């Protein structure tokens, strides 16, 4: 049978993506630990960031600076990002300490790092999108850092339109795409098991 891209894609999906893995109704007993909750808490914070950020983007800076409801949504966006990074760092500690890249999970680990690094750029562009004196100060100070590493020519912290566009469109969609991939890999390979206590490594089981 002659191969074509559609058939190859269907075969690959059927082989690599099983619904038993994507939507499991049973999880291993070892996930009964609060350490395994940091990832989903990060995800919940991200969902709340998108919800509050969408409201802020819809009504705009004049609304979030002067309206009481705007202040409220601005604050929720601020505290969501505090929770987002708080739980993401805890998730990183937990996964690092249990060597979560074991058992073919290296791309899960790498995608997590990419998410962390892109989130930092999201945080920076968010500071620059506040349209207040803090944003001006961060922009003027930070542009020298960008110039010193050679990216100031195309990543201009003083260009509000560029920073705002990155913050509300490109970075959120990049994060959503990467989170989808990250979650898919978690489902595909399963949640990593805790390290064995006998010091003999994975081979002990």
């Amino acid at each position, binding site marked *: 049978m002659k191969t074509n891209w559609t058939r190859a894609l269907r075969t690959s999906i059927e082989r690599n993506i099983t619904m038993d893995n994507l939507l499991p109704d049973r999880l291993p007993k070892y996930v*009964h*630990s*609060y*350490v395994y*909750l*940091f990832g989903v808490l990060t995800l919940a914070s991200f969902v709340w960031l998108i919800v509050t950020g969408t409201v802020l983007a819809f009504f705009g800076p004049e609304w979030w600076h002067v309206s009481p409801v705007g202040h409220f949504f601005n604050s929720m966006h601020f505290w969501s990002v505090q929770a987002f990074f*708080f739980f993401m*760092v*805890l998730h990183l*500690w*937990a996964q690092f300490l249990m060597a979560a890249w074991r058992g073919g999970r290296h791309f899960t680990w790498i995608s997590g790092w990419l998410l962390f690094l892109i989130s930092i750029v999201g945080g920076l562009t968010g500071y620059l999108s506040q349209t*207040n*004196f*803090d944003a001006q*100060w*961060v922009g003027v*100070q930070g542009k020298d850092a960008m110039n010193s590493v050679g990216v100031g020519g195309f990543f201009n912290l003083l260009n509000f339109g560029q920073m705002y566009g990155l913050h509300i469109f490109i970075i959120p969609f990049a994060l959503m795409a990467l989170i989808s991939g990250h979650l898919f890999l978690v489902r595909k390979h399963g949640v990593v098991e805790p390290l064995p206590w006998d010091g003999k490594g994975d081979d002990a089981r």
Partner: protein
Amino acid sequence: MGQGGLRPPLQAGSSWQFAWLNLSVADMVVVGLMLVVFALALIMRWPGEHS
């Protein structure tokens, strides 16, 4: 500083400095809180679990 002094609007307050590391009080509070939450997550037993 002249002209009334150009001051950053972001005021982190007092900070602890060690070599390249510069942590404000707020930084240290957040890091401390993260360590506490992480330790609690390791120690606390899952509801319904028995040893």
